[in-house]
């Protein structure tokens, strides 16, 4: 599930992600040699207390968000969270403790607590933890391949960008506009008794806005959110370039985003939304843009292929999965039509999931989840890999902070482009009665990932192969397997784009992770569309 909707995140009531730090503090990293000393204290303490395995994560998590509305900067915040989390196996059981008291005494005490917890909990085990083998990598580093570190861009430049975006929207006729720039830097150090000392530097960026238009006479209002994607990139994402634009009924963006242009388009489109025809409920062929389809992929493919859900580890909160092991073992479970090829990866450049190593020291990779429509694999980590007969983890372990225990999280999960080189327009021209949906909005799916409902930002009616104007009050409901089997066309690789979630929630206590989903525009036949208009 994604923990925070776009609409919610755009209001200035943001929760803090960590503590605030001064805006003028220079962007710095901590010397890996110091982190190695800290890690060795924990590893030695853990083994001397009886742990058979231990890993240590020393994390410095920096966030910056610039929050504006109309012509005002409401909030500029830098947060930093620094501390250490120690995970151990003792008496066959996991134990974990975390502290921000990072001197030798604080680390030793937290480590002792982790071992105490493991030993206390061992009586509640049915079988000891079995870890897939993992070689130590020695002292290694990985840095996200960014071109421009967004934390080093002056605040004024960011403020000026957002205020110019807001100005464009207001001049375009908006009543209100809220815009936000989120920046994330994870400086993560991992060490384990397997002999790895891994230093990583990860960057993420998400520029976004909501434009609101109000009809004063009727009191009705509509919004249009940005068509940007959160990315695993630096500030270069905001350097617009023509080669990354796709001209459709609006402008769509690939690896670079033109925020100003999108605000102008948004202001015009929110006014069209006010006048749009309310949809007639019924069956439609849907043509889904990647800016919308990513979320459907996330919810209906990403989550049900998480092995921990399949096994029941999330039964009390996020839920289980309809993709039970017998379906995978049959080697012929028909997840979708033959056009449906879905890959998992933690390596795609510019994606939110890309890292060199996961949070239990496993080098990342790419593997198929759905091949020619058939379920072929899951996503897993070291202590569950043996259940699939794998001799190594797939590298899907992640913790959202030093204070959180790492567990299985979704890698990037992406629909592969079609074999031909069709464009969205090629798909549209073959549709008699359909709806073309751009952008994500409301989303909901059951705890086993069968029944879902999604909405978008922009809906265009398709009549006999042509766009016939804008619609509103649209949501579609379907069943995952039916939906993916109704996939009748996927556009080519020229149309491939990433969407993603900055705040995918899972686990107890709930943790948030960021993940991308790639796709080209795709067509789904005969999907049930409901009308969402109500009166109160």
């Amino acid at each position: 599930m994604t923990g925070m909707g776009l609409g919610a995140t755009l209001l200035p009531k943001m929760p803090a992600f960590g503590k605030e730090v001064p805006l003028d503090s220079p962007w710095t990293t901590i010397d890996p040699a110091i982190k190695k000393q800290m890690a060795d204290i924990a590893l030695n303490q853990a083994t001397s207390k009886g742990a058979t395995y231990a890993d240590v994560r020393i994390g410095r998590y920096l966030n910056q968000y610039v929050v504006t509305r109309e012509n005002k900067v409401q909030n500029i915040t830098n947060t930093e969270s620094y501390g250490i989390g120690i995970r151990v196996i003792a008496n066959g059981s996991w134990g974990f403790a975390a502290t921000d008291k990072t001197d030798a005494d604080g680390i030793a005490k937290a480590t002792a607590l982790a071992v105490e917890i493991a030993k206390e909990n061992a009586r509640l085990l049915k079988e000891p933890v079995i870890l897939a083998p993992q070689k130590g990598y020695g002292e290694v580093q990985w840095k996200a391949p960014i071109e421009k570190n967004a934390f080093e861009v002056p605040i004024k430049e960011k403020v000026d960008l957002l205020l110019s975006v807001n100005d464009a929207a207001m001049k375009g006729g908006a009543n209100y506009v809220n815009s936000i720039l989120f920046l994330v830097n994870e400086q993560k150090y991992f060490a384990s008794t397997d002999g790895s000392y891994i230093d990583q530097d990860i960057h993420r960026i998400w520029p976004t806005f909501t434009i609101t238009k109000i009809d004063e006479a009727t009191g009705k209002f509509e919004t249009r959110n940005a068509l940007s994607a959160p990315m695993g990139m630096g500030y270069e994402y905001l350097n617009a370039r023509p080669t990354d634009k796709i001209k459709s009924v609006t402008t769509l963006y690939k690896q670079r985003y033109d925020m100003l242009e999108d605000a102008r388009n948004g202001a015009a489109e929110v006014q069209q939304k006010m006048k749009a025809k309310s949809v007639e409920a019924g069956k439609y062929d849907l043509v889904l843009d990647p800016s919308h389809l990513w979320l459907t992929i996330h919810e209906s493919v990403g989550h049900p292929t998480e092995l921990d859900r399949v096994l029941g580890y999330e039964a009390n909160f996020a839920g289980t999965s309809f993709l039970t092991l017998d379906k995978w073992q049959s080697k012929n479970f028909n997840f979708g039509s033959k056009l449906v090829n879905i890959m998992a990866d933690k390596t795609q450049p510019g994606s939110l999931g890309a890292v060199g190593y996961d949070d239990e020291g496993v080098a990342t990779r790419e593997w198929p989840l759905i091949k020619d429509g058939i379920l072929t694999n899951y996503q897993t980590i070291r202590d569950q890999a043996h259940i699939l007969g794998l001799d190594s983890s797939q590298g899907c372990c992640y913790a959202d902070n030093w204070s959180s225990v790492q567990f299985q999280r979704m890698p990037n999960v992406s629909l592969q482009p079609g074999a031909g080189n069709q464009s969205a327009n090629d798909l549209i021209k073959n549709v008699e009665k359909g709806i073309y949906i751009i952008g994500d909005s409301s989303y909901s799916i059951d705890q086993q990932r069968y029944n879902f409902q999604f909405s978008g930002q922009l809906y265009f009616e398709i009549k006999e192969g042509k766009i016939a104007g804008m619609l509103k009050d649209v949501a579609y409901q379907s069943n995952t397997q039916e939906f993916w089997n109704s996939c009748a066309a996927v556009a080519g690789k020229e149309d491939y784009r990433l969407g993603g979630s900055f705040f995918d929630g899972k686990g107890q206590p709930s943790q948030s992770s960021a993940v991308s989903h790639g796709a080209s525009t795709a067509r789904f036949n005969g999907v049930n569309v409901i009308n969402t208009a109500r009166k109160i």
Partner: protein
Amino acid sequence: MPILSKEEAQALLKKVLAFSKADECEVNLYGSDGGNIRYARNAVSTSGGISSTTLIVQSSFGKKVGTATINEYDDASLEKAVRRSEELARLAPENPEHMPVLAPQQYAGSKTYVPATAGITPKMRADAVAQSLAVANEKDLVAAGFWDNNAGFAAMMNSKGLFAYNTSTNVSFNVTLRTKDGKGSGYASKGYNDVSKLDVAAATRVAAQKAAASSNARALEPGKYTVILEPAAAIVLLETMFMNMDARSADEGRSFLSKPGGKTKLGEKLVDERVTLYSDPQNPDMPTSPWTGDGRPQEKVTWIDKGVMKNLFYSRYWAQQKNVKAIPFPDSAIMEGGSASLEDLIKGTEKGILVTRLWYIREVDPQTLLYTGLTRDGTFYIENGQIKYPVKNFRFNESPIIMLNNLEELGKPERTVSGESDIQALIPPMKIRDFTFTSLSDAI
């Protein structure tokens, strides 16, 4: 850092303020120690102990504001944090909505800290899970659950002499039991300040009963049904209304409370007259902090009185603009009810559906507060006052405003926890007519 006493926190904050050279300075200090344990497949999975602190210094020169934080407490580090916040304030653009710090306030006493909860150990958590697993094993069911406990303190002081301090404890427990064939699932959730009120075995037995009874559910046609929402189901829709009672959004015309021409529905009858909704930090069954992070007192506030929208919450800036009292966003939701038990509500129902839990609630239309989501972990058909059989889960599309206008009966309020937001609430089970289910789900 251990939990600081009031005197220790006051001394530390005074020391920080003594370094200030700004027009105004405000300092917040937080610390917590906690632990958790998770289990699934009838065995422990992950668990942990977490300790963390934060010191936040906000300095301002006129309407220019800067903030810096630190988690080291020697004199040099404290002074560094103050100086950095001041440098930043000088660099920052003016924020026309910045408000001066508050003068000293009067706060009521606090009932949020219970020593027994602060004293929870890893062994106590493991013992509790052992009790829950014993129920699962006895009933031949599969358990997945979570226990989380926390003890913390919060303190603030500013250059006008305001000082506030509070300690609090919380423990929450929730559990899902499933039949081994995966055809039945039941859920229970509890949360308290005082761990002695938490009965893990009893909660697990409730989930076990629902799991066994929900096996082999039958499919009913989607449509409009009378439903009985247990408190854990009702809160996730009720809280969506609560979270949207912001005055500024209403005044700006972009809320379910907005009316044409810049007017709002404040003072109007919005829902059934049996609906009275308030918050009260002093409620003995659900105490919350007597002050907010910006120093405002949290007091008893009636939001909806006999169906009429009485109050909205305000930022201090917006309240000044509107020349009204700046009522903060509350920490608790309490809804009045009747004396009927859940069983009484079922007995009085000719045809209806009992809903244990609603899940994955997302906004569809902010104008009407239309939300969608699904039933989960125990959905049953009622006929002639009796539970007849389990039914397959439904997707709903419904607005809490429509729901509270279609009120049939309220039961006796009880403390519950939102499975969506973790917000704690004291609300009754609700019997609602014409609740809109739009499709069936195969999920169990």
